[in-house]
C-alpha cells in the first residue's frame, strides 16, 4: 500500500460572526438542485442554522453521517450560559429528528463539501466569515477510500426502514414497469 496525499477541507465555524442570514442554507440547497440552481429550499440544505434569536443561539451545523438508529443517551450543551437544544451539535441524519432529511422522501442528506467547486458554496456565500474553509494536504495510507454517494446513503436508510429484500423486490417491480 503506497502513501498518497489527499486534500482535507476543514470548515471553521465562528458562531460569534454568524448574523443568522441563512444564505448558507439557501445556496447549499440551490446548488444541489437538479438541474443545478433550478430550485432552492432550505429544508434540503446540508447545512442548517439552529437559531433562537431570543437566546442568542446561532449555530450552523453540517449534515454528517446517516445514523440508522438514534442514540440511547442525548447531550445538551450549555456554553457561556446559553443552553443549546438537545443534540444541537450532532451532525447525524438520525431517526429522532427531521433535520438533514429530504422533506418529501425523508431520505438522509449529507454535506459533500461541494466536491467539484473551488470552494464550498456555503463558505463563499457567508461573506461575514462565520464559515471559513481551510484546506491542507495530508498523507494517507490507503489508496482510494470509497465514499458512499447520495444514492447509496439513501438506499441504506431505506434498507433500515423496509429491509433489503423488500427494496430489491420493489426495484425489480419498477424496472419491469419501466
Amino acid at each position, binding site marked *: 500500500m503506497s502513501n498518497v496525499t489527499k486534500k482535507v477541507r476543514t470548515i471553521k465555524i465562528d458562531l460569534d460572526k454568524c448574523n443568522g*442570514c*441563512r444564505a448558507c442554507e439557501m445556496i447549499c440547497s440551490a446548488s444541489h438542485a437538479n438541474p443545478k*440552481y433550478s430550485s*432552492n429550499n432550505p429544508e*434540503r440544505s446540508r447545512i442548517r442554522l439552529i437559531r433562537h434569536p431570543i437566546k442568542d443561539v446561532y449555530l450552523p451545523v453540517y449534515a454528517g453521517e446517516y445514523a440508522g438508529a438514534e442514540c440511547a443517551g442525548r447531550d445538551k450543551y450549555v456554553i457561556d450560559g446559553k443552553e443549546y437544544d438537545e443534540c444541537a451539535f450532532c451532525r447525524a441524519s438520525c431517526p429522532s429528528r427531521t433535520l438533514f432529511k429530504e422533506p418529501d422522501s425523508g431520505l438522509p442528506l449529507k454535506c459533500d463539501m461541494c466536491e467539484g467547486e473551488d470552494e464550498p458554496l456555503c463558505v463563499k456565500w457567508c461573506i*461575514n466569515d462565520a464559515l471559513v474553509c481551510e484546506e491542507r494536504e495530508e498523507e494517507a495510507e490507503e489508496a482510494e477510500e470509497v465514499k458512499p454517494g447520495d444514492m447509496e446513503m439513501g438506499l441504506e436508510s431505506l434498507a433500515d426502514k423496509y429491509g433489503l429484500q423488500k427494496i430489491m423486490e420493489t426495484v425489480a417491480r419498477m424496472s419491469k414497469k419501466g
Partner: protein
Amino acid sequence: MRYAETGFHLEIDLSRGSIERVESDPKLTTLYLGGLGTNARIVWDRVPPETEPFSPDNLLIFGTGLLCGTPAPGANRTIVTTYSPQTLLMAYSMMGGFWAPELKYAGYDKVIFRGKSPKLIYLWIHNDKVEIRDAAHLHGKGAVETQELIRQELKEPNAQVAAIGLAGENRVYTASIEHGRSSASRLGIGAVMGDKGIKAVAVRGTKDLHLARPEEFMKLCNEVMHYIKAREDKPIPGVMPILAGLGSPQEMLHIDEKWHTENFSWGNSRVRRKDFWTKEVEEKWKESQLGARTRLISCYNCPMKCGAIISLPGMSTYMMKCFTKLTYTMAAFVDDLDFGFRIAGRATEYGVDGFSTPQIMAFAFELKEAGILTDKDFAGCPSDNEGKFYWLLDRIVRREGIGDVLANGTHWAAKQIGKGAEAYAHNNIKKHEQLPLKLGMLNPVYFLMYCTGEKANITQIEGQFPQAPFLTMEEREDFVKDWIHVPDEKFKQYLLDWEIRGERSNPNYPTVDMSAEIVDWQEMMHYIDDALGMCAGLSSFPLKPPYHIHNLPHFISAATGLDIDEAGLTQVYNRNRNLIRAINIRRGLKRADEKPPEDHWRKRFPELEEKLLDRYYEFKGWNHDGIPTRETLRALDLGDVAEDLGRRGIITNE
C-alpha cells in the same frame, strides 16, 4: 410551471372561518410583478373606496415580493396592504426578516384576509395544511413573546411568525406587526390586524421554489455578492456614516450619533440641541449600546447586519433596528441611551411604531404644558421624563383615559381635543407623523418627495440621488465616476452643477424640471423594490447600491422567464405608481393634502412650490389636481381604472 412565484394565494374569510387555496392569474404578474403591485390591484378590484378601515370588507393582504425566496440577496420583504385607519389612504408597510421566503416555501405568494373573526385567532400555515387556531390564551401577550409561545406550542422552532401586541388588539392607530428583528410599523396596519381578530400568522414551508433560467440568475446573484463586498470596503466619502454604506441605516452598528442628536429635533419635534454630542455623552452612549447589544443580525439571505439582539438585565430580550433607539430618547428629552433601549423593548412587545408613538407622547406633554390638557388627564403620571413616558405609553396601548384619545395619533387626537391642539400636531403629512427634522433652506427635490409620497414616509421614496451637494468639484467628479446607477447620463451633470451656495443651489437648483426627474427616478426604484420584495437597504435607499435599474430587469427575466427590459420595467413602475395614486384619489386624496409640515423648512417659497407640484403632476401625466388623466391610465393598460374614475366623476371630460 410558475417561476419565482408559487402561483397560489391563500384566501381566508375570518367571518366564516373558511380557507381557500386559489391560483393567481399569471397575467397580473406580467402587469404588476408582485408584492405591492399585485396587492394594489387586489385592493383596487376588491375593496370599494367607501370601505372603512375597520370594516369586515377591508382586506388585509400579506404579499411576498416576486423575488422573495429566490437566491437574490436581500429579497425578503413582506408587503402588508390595507386601508390605514390613520391616513384613511392605502397603507403598505413592509417587513424584512424571514416571513416572506417561508411563505413561498410553503407554497403561497400571498395571504389575503377578509371579514372579522368573532374571537382572537392565529393562522397556522404548514405547507398544504392551513388552520385557524384559537388565540384566547395569547390575549394581551407581547408581540415578541407571542411569536415564541406559538413556536413552542406548535413545536416548530423554525416557524416564522408575525404577531401583534396589545396595541394591535386595542386598535391603536400606530400599532405595528412584529416579526423577529423586523416589523411592518407604519400607518396602523397592526390595528387592522387586531380589528380582524388576528393575533398572529405563523408559517412553515418546506417546498421548492423554482427559477426559470438558473445559470443566468446565479451569475447575477454572484455579481451582487461581489459588489456588496467591494462596496462595503469602500464607503462613500463626504456623507454622514449611515449614508456611506449599504443596508438600512446602520443604527445598531454605529455609536456616533452626533448627526442625529444635533440635527434632528427633540421633544415634539421642536428643539435642536446643537452642542449635545460631547465626549462624555459619547462615552456613556457607547457603553449603553455595547452593553445592550448582544449580536448584530440580518434578514433572510442578506450579508448586512441592520438589526441587533438587545438584552438588558431585568427585561426580556428583543430585537431592534433603525432609529428606534433614538426616537423615544429624544422625544422624552432623556440624555441616557439606556432609557431608549429599555422603553423600546416595552414598546416592541406592545407592538407600536417607533416613529409615531414617541411623537404622540411628546405632543401630549406639550399640550399639558400649554394647559390644553389638564392635570386631570394625567392623574397618576410621574413627573420625571422617563417615568412620564412609560406611564403614557401604557395608557395609549391600553386606550385608558387620555390614552384612548392619543391612540388615534396626533392628527385625530388634536381634532378631538380641540382648544387649539391642532397647532401642536405640527409634524404630519397626510395625518401621519414624520421624522422630527426641521431644516433651513427648502430643498426642491425633498419638497416634492415629502408632498407626493403615497406612503407619507420620506425613507420610502428617497435614496439614489445625494441628499445634499458635495462641497468641491473634485468630490463631485469622484462621485459620478462609478455612478453606474443613473437611468440617464444627465443626472451626473445635475449633480456636478449642484452648488452649496449661489445660483445653482437650493431652492432654485436642481431646477423644477430636474427635480421632477430626480424624484421620478428615486421613487421608481422604491416601487420596483416593493414589487420584488427587495430590501431598500440593498437597492433603492443607499447611494450606489448593488441593485439598480440596469440589472434588475435581468434578475426578473432570469427568475421568472418573463422577458422584461428597462423600458418594460419602467412601464410596470409607472403602472403601479398610477394605480396606487388612483386608489388614493378614489379614497379622497387631494392636491391640498400634498404638503410638507409647515415648519419643515424655515425658508419657504410658495410660488416655487406651486410650480414644483405643477411640474411633477404634469411629468406624471396627471392633471392640476394630481389625478391621472384618461390617456395616462390607458397607456398603462389601466383603462378600466380610468373608466371607474370617470363613472365616479373624478375624471371629467378631457
